[in-house]
């Protein structure tokens, strides 16, 4: 357990520091609110609508598809580096992995998930 002591210390220091900074700035900082200062910062344009905007579900779909293919890329990088050592087995493994993704892509395509307007 003793090996964890520095870690705990770090946590404590971080917490104390963060808390202290916030407290000090709230206590010491000058407060001079005006209506302009209280509105959310939107790069100078007028604020419109409520706080909760429902994004279209299609964004989620796109995002999740992006994650899937992004991870594909992340996995392919180390493989290319070790390509020679892994040899045929590596090639076959990566081949089947990409094949699976191709199947998934086909499925997604046929199901119409790639079309924005339908």
């Amino acid at each position, binding site marked *: 357990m003793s090996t964890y002591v520095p870690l705990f210390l770090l946590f404590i220091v971080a917490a104390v520091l963060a808390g202290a900074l916030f407290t000090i700035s709230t206590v010491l900082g000058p407060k001079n609110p005006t209506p302009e200062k209280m509105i959310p910062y939107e790069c100078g344009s007028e604020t419109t609508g409520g706080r909760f905007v429902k994004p279209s579900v299609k964004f989620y779909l796109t995002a999740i598809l992006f994650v899937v293919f992004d991870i594909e890329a992340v996995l392919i990088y180390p493989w290319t580096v070790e390509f020679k050592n892994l040899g045929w087995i590596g090639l076959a493994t990566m081949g089947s992995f990409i094949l699976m993704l191709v199947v998934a892509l*086909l499925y997604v395509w*046929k*199901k119409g998930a790639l079309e924005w307007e339908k």
Partner: protein
Amino acid sequence: MNSGLFLGLSPLLVVSLGGLLLMVAEAFSKRRVDETSDDRDAGPSSELSLGTAVTLLAGAVFAAAIWFVGPEKLEGASSVAPWVIVDRFTLFFSFVLCLGGALAALLAGGYLPEHRLDRGEFYPLIIFSTVGAMILASAGDLLSLFLGLETMSLGVYAMVGFRRASLRSTEAAVKYFLLGSFAAALLLYGGALLYGATGHTDLAGIREAIANMQPGKGSNFALVITAAVLIIVGLAFKVSAVPFHMWTPDAYEGAPTPTTTYMAVAVKCAAFATMLRVLIGAFGEGGLESWAAGWPPVVALLAVLTMTVANLVAGQQESVKRMLAYSSIAHAGYVLVGVVATMRAGGDAQGSVMFYLLTYTVSTVGAFGALILMGSRGAEAVSYEDLAGVGKRHPAAGFAFSLFLLSLAGVPPTAGFFGKLYIVKASIGAGLYPLAIILLLNSVISAYYYLRVMVYMYMREPAPGAPIAKPMRSGYVATALVVAGVLVLVLGLWPTTSLQIAVEAALATR
């Protein structure tokens, strides 16, 4: 490359490949129905259901084939261990899971078109969940275990919420998803602590490290125990043991009935497989397996609570589906008794647990299947009142339902009776007399609510003007019921062989 490895993994591979093919085929298929159509045969179910069942049964057949070849003879199959262990234990559960999945797929083939839910996504979901369940049953490492668990669960979350238009179904899915993720997080946390304490993620390594651990000052024993508690709680969520069962009735009731069947059967079996692997494989030594300082009393308490509470509550339900949900919780309690008994009675007790899961699978599939059969479009059979007089109007369906209920109640000579008998035998053999007695008394309580269904079917007439359930006509459901019914009787009259197989499978993990 070696063929032994591929043969060893063939059940997994066959099911996965079949799933991929079916998925693509479904995407390219022209069979689409708008959900207002009245044509029950136009949708994708008519092809996919059979395809799914065949794929899963092929997985079961491959598992059986490897069993006869002998998994220990397959060279190279151990090269994927401990992530995927190919032993008789894995094969047994692969078989049971594939069987349960296939029967659930057949039920879906009748249910989904009947209730205007006919969308093809259901079938790949079943298949990939089963793949996850099979990985879960074969995992000998906490990492692959978690992978399998999530693969299985994600599919099931989607299947629970499959009735998108229904609020109850969505509610069920959200509940199940939240609590399921919570359980997975606990499990993961336990795994992380275990890794911290022992430096291993593979179960055998953990076991060894725990065995070598000196209890006392400066050891990580406290960490191990915390981890064990977290893992047991996580698994208890998955097998829906009281007091971690709160999600179960809502999820089971809100889900479409084939999903409920699948959850009650495959998910539960896979969770128990993991429980056996972890409790015996990782926590089987170093005092953790003892009554004085280990998991047995915890699991025993869970078992007693699960059986008693579930049975008492089940008797008060007004919905048959909800009653069956509670009954499935109660059965988890009976299995937990067997799990406790493994600490002393060893392979025999574990074999009895596994045999019980097999009998439970066929009886539960049958009971839910019969409930599905009782309802048709617009008149799904849910409550007791719906079933009034069914025995007279549709004797075959009533007879089938009665058979499965009697099996669940444990009346000889059905499969369920032998399941209970072996568990009781194992727990008496382990000297756990109070548990055995509580189990038996609980089975008396359970007889009450199973009988109530029979009472409504045979001894009540529907109130005049009350809606009555009209049985559907579906070859798929009928086939599933016949298969399950034959298995219930065969396992009830000649249980020895399958018990021996289960014991042999159990010995593989010891």
